[in-house]
Protein backbone atom coordinates (compact mmCIF):
# COMPACT_ATOMS: atom_id res chain seq x y z
CA UNK A 1 0.00 0.00 0.00
CA UNK A 2 1.40 3.37 -1.02
CA UNK A 3 1.53 5.82 1.88
CA UNK A 4 2.65 9.36 2.48
CA UNK A 5 6.13 9.63 4.03
CA UNK A 6 7.93 12.94 3.66
CA UNK A 7 7.53 16.27 1.98
CA UNK A 8 10.36 18.66 1.13
CA UNK A 9 10.80 22.37 1.72
CA UNK A 10 13.59 24.55 0.36
CA UNK A 11 15.37 26.51 3.06
CA UNK A 12 17.95 29.30 2.88
CA UNK A 13 19.98 27.99 5.80
CA UNK A 14 19.63 24.52 7.25
CA UNK A 15 21.00 25.47 10.69
CA UNK A 16 18.58 28.38 10.95
CA UNK A 17 15.73 26.13 9.78
CA UNK A 18 16.69 23.41 12.26
CA UNK A 19 16.58 25.89 15.11
CA UNK A 20 13.17 27.17 13.98
CA UNK A 21 11.51 23.78 13.50
CA UNK A 22 12.84 22.25 16.72
CA UNK A 23 13.19 25.11 19.22
CA UNK A 24 10.22 27.21 18.06
CA UNK A 25 7.79 24.76 16.47
CA UNK A 26 8.71 21.96 18.85
CA UNK A 27 9.39 19.30 16.21
CA UNK A 28 12.16 16.76 16.63
CA UNK A 29 15.12 15.92 14.43
CA UNK A 30 14.67 12.64 12.59
CA UNK A 31 17.86 12.55 10.53
CA UNK A 32 20.83 14.86 10.13
CA UNK A 33 23.69 13.51 8.07
CA UNK A 34 26.23 15.17 5.81
CA UNK A 35 27.59 13.22 2.85
CA UNK A 36 31.06 14.33 1.75
CA UNK A 37 30.93 12.11 -1.33
CA UNK A 38 27.94 14.07 -2.65
CA UNK A 39 29.44 17.53 -2.23
CA UNK A 40 28.60 17.71 1.49
CA UNK A 41 24.90 17.26 0.82
CA UNK A 42 23.10 17.45 4.16
CA UNK A 43 20.02 15.27 4.64
CA UNK A 44 18.00 16.94 7.38
CA UNK A 45 14.50 15.88 8.38
CA UNK A 46 12.19 16.96 11.21
CA UNK A 47 8.74 15.93 12.35
CA UNK A 48 6.23 16.15 15.21
CA UNK A 49 7.05 13.87 18.14
CA UNK A 50 3.79 11.95 17.99
CA UNK A 51 3.80 11.47 14.20
CA UNK A 52 6.87 9.27 13.70
CA UNK A 53 5.73 8.16 10.23
CA UNK A 54 5.91 11.54 8.55
CA UNK A 55 8.66 14.13 8.23
CA UNK A 56 9.59 17.37 6.51
CA UNK A 57 12.85 17.34 4.57
CA UNK A 58 14.62 20.68 5.01
CA UNK A 59 16.64 20.92 1.84
CA UNK A 60 19.28 23.55 1.16
CA UNK A 61 18.89 25.37 -2.13
CA UNK A 62 21.52 23.79 -4.39
CA UNK A 63 23.84 25.72 -6.65
CA UNK A 64 25.44 24.70 -9.91
CA UNK A 65 25.68 22.24 -11.54
CA UNK A 66 22.26 21.14 -10.28
CA UNK A 67 20.66 24.57 -10.25
CA UNK A 68 22.02 27.51 -12.21
CA UNK A 69 22.25 30.99 -10.72
CA UNK A 70 19.11 32.26 -12.51
CA UNK A 71 17.02 29.38 -11.21
CA UNK A 72 18.34 29.90 -7.69
CA UNK A 73 17.35 33.57 -7.88
CA UNK A 74 13.86 32.65 -9.16
CA UNK A 75 13.41 30.11 -6.40
CA UNK A 76 14.56 32.55 -3.73
CA UNK A 77 12.10 35.13 -5.01
CA UNK A 78 9.21 32.68 -4.91
CA UNK A 79 10.16 31.69 -1.38
CA UNK A 80 10.46 35.28 -0.21
CA UNK A 81 6.97 35.95 -1.58
CA UNK A 82 5.64 32.88 0.20
CA UNK A 83 4.77 30.95 -2.95
CA UNK A 84 7.17 28.07 -2.65
CA UNK A 85 4.82 25.81 -0.76
CA UNK A 86 2.38 25.65 2.14
CA UNK A 87 2.36 23.16 5.00
CA UNK A 88 -0.91 22.61 6.84
CA UNK A 89 -0.66 22.00 10.58
CA UNK A 90 -3.39 21.41 13.13
CA UNK A 91 -3.58 22.18 16.82
CA UNK A 92 -6.05 21.50 19.59
CA UNK A 93 -6.00 25.14 20.69
CA UNK A 94 -5.14 27.70 18.04
CA UNK A 95 -5.13 30.70 20.36
CA UNK A 96 -2.83 29.03 22.88
CA UNK A 97 -0.46 27.80 20.17
CA UNK A 98 -0.46 31.25 18.58
CA UNK A 99 0.52 32.90 21.87
CA UNK A 100 3.17 30.31 22.61
CA UNK A 101 4.75 30.51 19.15
CA UNK A 102 4.66 34.31 19.10
CA UNK A 103 6.48 34.32 22.42
CA UNK A 104 9.17 32.20 20.84
CA UNK A 105 9.58 34.62 17.97
CA UNK A 106 7.52 33.04 15.19
CA UNK A 107 6.34 35.57 12.59
CA UNK A 108 2.59 35.33 12.11
CA UNK A 109 0.98 36.67 8.97
CA UNK A 110 -2.51 36.05 10.35
CA UNK A 111 -3.67 35.93 13.94
CA UNK A 112 -6.28 33.25 14.78
CA UNK A 113 -9.60 33.94 13.05
CA UNK A 114 -12.92 32.16 13.02
CA UNK A 115 -13.65 30.26 9.82
CA UNK A 116 -16.46 27.82 8.93
CA UNK A 117 -14.04 24.91 9.34
CA UNK A 118 -12.48 26.10 12.58
CA UNK A 119 -9.99 28.67 13.83
CA UNK A 120 -7.19 29.38 11.39
CA UNK A 121 -3.90 31.31 11.52
CA UNK A 122 -0.86 31.68 9.32
CA UNK A 123 2.88 32.08 9.82
CA UNK A 124 6.17 31.80 7.99
CA UNK A 125 9.42 30.03 8.59
CA UNK A 126 12.67 32.01 8.29
CA UNK A 127 12.92 31.15 4.56
CA UNK A 128 9.41 32.42 3.85
CA UNK A 129 7.66 29.06 3.55
CA UNK A 130 3.98 29.39 4.41
CA UNK A 131 2.26 27.55 7.21
CA UNK A 132 -1.38 27.28 8.20
CA UNK A 133 -2.05 26.45 11.85
CA UNK A 134 -5.67 25.35 12.27
CA UNK A 135 -7.89 24.25 15.09
CA UNK A 136 -10.28 22.10 13.09
CA UNK A 137 -13.90 22.22 14.08
CA UNK A 138 -15.75 18.94 14.44
CA UNK A 139 -18.56 19.08 11.89
CA UNK A 140 -21.94 18.34 13.43
CA UNK A 141 -23.72 15.37 11.94
CA UNK A 142 -27.49 15.12 11.68
Amino acid at each position, binding site marked *: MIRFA*NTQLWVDDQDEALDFY*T*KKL*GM*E*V*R*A*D*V*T*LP*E*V*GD*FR*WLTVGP*ADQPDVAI*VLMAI*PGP*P*LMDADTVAQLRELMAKGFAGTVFLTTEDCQASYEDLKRRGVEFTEAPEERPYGIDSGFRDPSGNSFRLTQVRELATN
Partner: protein
Amino acid sequence: MAFAPPARHLLRARDLADARYFEPLGVDDLARAAGLSRAHFSREFRQAFGESPHAYLLTRRLERAASLLRGTDRSVADICLSVGLQSIGSFTTSFTRTFGRSPTAHRAAFPPAANQARVPTCMLRARGRPQHRTFREDSGPPRT
Protein backbone atom coordinates in the same frame (compact mmCIF):
# COMPACT_ATOMS: atom_id res chain seq x y z
CA MET B 1 -12.55 2.29 40.42
CA ALA B 2 -12.81 5.54 38.46
CA PHE B 3 -9.59 6.77 36.90
CA ALA B 4 -8.61 10.19 38.27
CA PRO B 5 -6.29 11.90 35.79
CA PRO B 6 -3.14 13.55 37.23
CA ALA B 7 -3.77 17.07 38.38
CA ARG B 8 -3.36 19.62 35.62
CA HIS B 9 -0.41 21.36 37.25
CA LEU B 10 1.62 18.16 37.36
CA LEU B 11 0.86 17.52 33.72
CA ARG B 12 1.99 21.03 32.89
CA ALA B 13 5.33 20.33 34.54
CA ARG B 14 5.69 17.06 32.65
CA ASP B 15 4.79 18.76 29.37
CA LEU B 16 7.50 21.31 30.08
CA ALA B 17 10.05 18.52 30.46
CA ASP B 18 8.92 16.99 27.16
CA ALA B 19 8.87 20.29 25.30
CA ARG B 20 11.99 22.02 26.59
CA TYR B 21 14.34 19.21 27.68
CA PHE B 22 17.03 20.68 25.43
CA GLU B 23 17.27 23.77 27.64
CA PRO B 24 19.22 23.77 30.91
CA LEU B 25 16.04 22.77 32.76
CA GLY B 26 16.07 21.20 36.23
CA VAL B 27 13.61 19.79 38.72
CA ASP B 28 13.41 23.23 40.38
CA ASP B 29 12.10 24.69 37.11
CA LEU B 30 9.51 21.93 36.81
CA ALA B 31 8.44 22.47 40.43
CA ARG B 32 8.08 26.18 39.73
CA ALA B 33 5.89 25.42 36.69
CA ALA B 34 3.69 23.27 38.91
CA GLY B 35 3.57 26.00 41.58
CA LEU B 36 4.86 23.71 44.33
CA SER B 37 7.88 23.42 46.59
CA ARG B 38 10.47 21.05 45.21
CA ALA B 39 9.92 18.37 47.87
CA HIS B 40 6.14 18.50 47.56
CA PHE B 41 6.35 18.50 43.78
CA SER B 42 8.69 15.49 43.65
CA ARG B 43 6.37 13.52 45.91
CA GLU B 44 3.21 14.35 43.93
CA PHE B 45 4.91 13.80 40.57
CA ARG B 46 6.16 10.37 41.55
CA GLN B 47 2.71 9.45 42.87
CA ALA B 48 1.02 10.58 39.66
CA PHE B 49 3.47 9.30 37.05
CA GLY B 50 5.31 6.48 38.78
CA GLU B 51 8.78 8.00 38.64
CA SER B 52 10.59 10.99 40.09
CA PRO B 53 10.68 14.19 38.02
CA HIS B 54 14.47 13.92 37.88
CA ALA B 55 14.24 10.41 36.41
CA TYR B 56 11.54 11.51 33.96
CA LEU B 57 13.55 14.46 32.69
CA LEU B 58 16.79 12.48 32.44
CA THR B 59 15.05 9.62 30.63
CA ARG B 60 13.56 12.08 28.14
CA ARG B 61 17.01 13.45 27.45
CA LEU B 62 18.59 10.01 27.09
CA GLU B 63 15.80 8.82 24.78
CA ARG B 64 16.35 11.85 22.56
CA ALA B 65 20.12 11.31 22.67
CA ALA B 66 19.68 7.69 21.57
CA SER B 67 17.56 8.86 18.65
CA LEU B 68 20.15 11.45 17.63
CA LEU B 69 22.91 8.84 17.83
CA ARG B 70 21.01 6.68 15.36
CA GLY B 71 19.76 9.37 13.01
CA THR B 72 22.55 11.93 12.85
CA ASP B 73 26.32 12.07 12.47
CA ARG B 74 26.78 14.58 15.27
CA SER B 75 29.50 13.92 17.84
CA VAL B 76 28.62 12.43 21.23
CA ALA B 77 29.68 15.69 22.87
CA ASP B 78 27.43 17.70 20.56
CA ILE B 79 24.48 15.38 21.22
CA CYS B 80 25.02 15.64 24.98
CA LEU B 81 24.73 19.42 24.79
CA SER B 82 21.82 19.21 22.32
CA VAL B 83 19.67 17.39 24.86
CA GLY B 84 20.31 19.92 27.62
CA LEU B 85 23.07 18.18 29.55
CA GLN B 86 26.32 19.88 30.44
CA SER B 87 28.65 17.12 31.60
CA ILE B 88 29.71 14.64 28.93
CA GLY B 89 31.14 12.32 31.60
CA SER B 90 27.89 11.97 33.53
CA PHE B 91 25.91 11.79 30.29
CA THR B 92 28.00 8.81 29.20
CA THR B 93 27.62 7.15 32.60
CA SER B 94 23.83 7.64 32.69
CA PHE B 95 23.45 6.53 29.09
CA THR B 96 25.48 3.37 29.60
CA ARG B 97 23.55 2.53 32.76
CA THR B 98 20.20 3.00 30.97
CA PHE B 99 20.95 1.36 27.63
CA GLY B 100 23.56 -1.20 28.69
CA ARG B 101 26.18 0.23 26.33
CA SER B 102 28.05 3.47 25.77
CA PRO B 103 26.73 6.15 23.37
CA THR B 104 29.46 5.20 20.88
CA ALA B 105 28.63 1.50 21.13
CA HIS B 106 24.92 2.28 20.76
CA ARG B 107 25.58 4.20 17.55
CA ALA B 108 27.81 1.41 16.24
CA ALA B 109 25.05 -1.15 16.84
CA PHE B 110 22.93 0.39 14.08
CA PRO B 111 23.53 1.02 10.38
CA PRO B 112 25.22 4.36 9.74
CA ALA B 113 22.86 7.32 9.83
CA ALA B 114 24.05 8.17 6.31
CA ASN B 115 22.17 5.09 5.07
CA GLN B 116 18.93 6.88 5.87
CA ALA B 117 19.72 9.80 3.62
CA ARG B 118 17.39 9.63 0.66
CA VAL B 119 19.47 11.72 -1.67
CA PRO B 120 17.44 12.53 -4.79
CA THR B 121 19.00 10.85 -7.80
CA CYS B 122 19.34 14.12 -9.70
CA MET B 123 21.55 15.38 -6.89
CA LEU B 124 23.63 12.21 -6.83
CA ARG B 125 24.13 12.50 -10.57
CA ALA B 126 24.99 16.20 -10.54
CA ARG B 127 27.16 16.27 -7.44
CA GLY B 128 28.66 12.85 -7.69
CA ARG B 129 30.33 13.55 -10.99
CA PRO B 130 34.02 12.71 -10.66
CA GLN B 131 36.45 15.50 -11.41
CA HIS B 132 37.93 14.06 -14.58
CA ARG B 133 41.34 14.91 -15.95
CA THR B 134 41.11 16.34 -19.43
CA PHE B 135 40.35 13.62 -21.90
CA ARG B 136 43.04 13.23 -24.57
CA GLU B 137 40.77 14.31 -27.37
CA ASP B 138 40.06 17.63 -25.65
CA SER B 139 43.65 18.75 -25.25
CA GLY B 140 46.04 20.39 -27.66
CA PRO B 141 45.83 20.90 -31.38
CA PRO B 142 44.78 17.97 -33.56
CA ARG B 143 47.61 15.70 -34.58
CA THR B 144 48.52 15.99 -38.23
